[in-house]
């Protein structure tokens, strides 16, 4: 099963996305890497690195990030873990996180997850 890491500047936001995703996919391997080591806002190289390690398997890991340093720090983690199967997904963190956790728990491979996030981004919440 693909592992999922949610990266956010906010620890509580990242944990909240994991909480929401687990409602849909209780057995998903999804973890939060939000905030700095002391819980204050920011993105932590170590937290992201350790989160990827925690859910890593041969099936790989998908990472969803909020903005700015979350993206850049994740890139640096991936460079530091060169040769491992880790993919950054581009899309909404909340909706994307839920969809990716669900798809991963159903056995969807890493290569197909970006497409699922794109669908989540395009889904309208209001009819008009």
């Amino acid at each position, binding site marked *: 099963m693909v592992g999922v890491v949610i990266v956010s500047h906010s620890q509580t936001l990242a944990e909240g996305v994991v909480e929401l995703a687990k409602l849909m996919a209780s057995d998903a391997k999804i973890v939060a890497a939000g905030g*700095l080591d002391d819980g*204050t*806002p*920011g*993105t*932590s*190289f*170590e937290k992201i690195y350790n989160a990827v390690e925690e859910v890593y398997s041969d099936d790989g890991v998908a990472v969803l990030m909020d*903005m*700015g*340093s979350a993206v*850049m*720090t994740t*890139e*640096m983690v991936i460079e530091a873990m060169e040769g491992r199967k880790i993919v950054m997904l581009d899309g909404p963190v909340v909706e994307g996180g839920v969809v990716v956790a669900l798809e991963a728990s159903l056995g969807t491979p890493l290569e197909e997850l970006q497409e699922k996030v794109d669908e989540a981004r395009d889904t309208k919440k209001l009819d008009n």
Partner: protein
Amino acid sequence: MIDILKAIAAKIDEEKDYLTELDNEIADGDHGVNMAKGFDAVVAKLDAMAGKDIGSILKTTGMTLVSTVGGSAGPLYGTAFMKAGAKLAGKNEMDGKDLVEAMEAAIGGIQMRGKATTGEKTMLDALCPAFDALKEGIEAGEDLKDALTKAVKAAEDGVEYTKTIKATKGRASYIGDRSIGHQDPGATSAFYMLETLLANI
């Protein structure tokens, strides 16, 4: 190099509140505090680096910034110092030509990491004109101090220029046109670093 980095850390710490204030006006208000935290962590490692080559010292500085800054400045300056360190590997002294090469690599790293260019109201608006001035001076045969003096002036002008333009990269881009009139904190911290380098060579 250790003394220069300590002086940069002191300058960043001194200007911490001002940098944060600048950042507060246009973005999330963490630049000064984050940079000070990062450079505090760098200073804590510097004494153990005594006797090491400039490349190793800069690489450790970069890695420490990545791990401790927490905002965009972490991966950006972190990559910059690591790239500069790679260029200066094995060197115990740095001449004008070395600085040109190191700065070119550092700027390349920032552009790669931030997918940014000049005119977007970022640290590049201070660093790129400074680099051009430095390179021109060194290539014309000026000594390091003269060339770097012009580079610092160009960086200062670059900081002024960021007041006139709209942010299109980073958190400040969320406020669009309303960022015009405000000075970019990243360009300001980049200027402080160059100014401190000049004062300590």
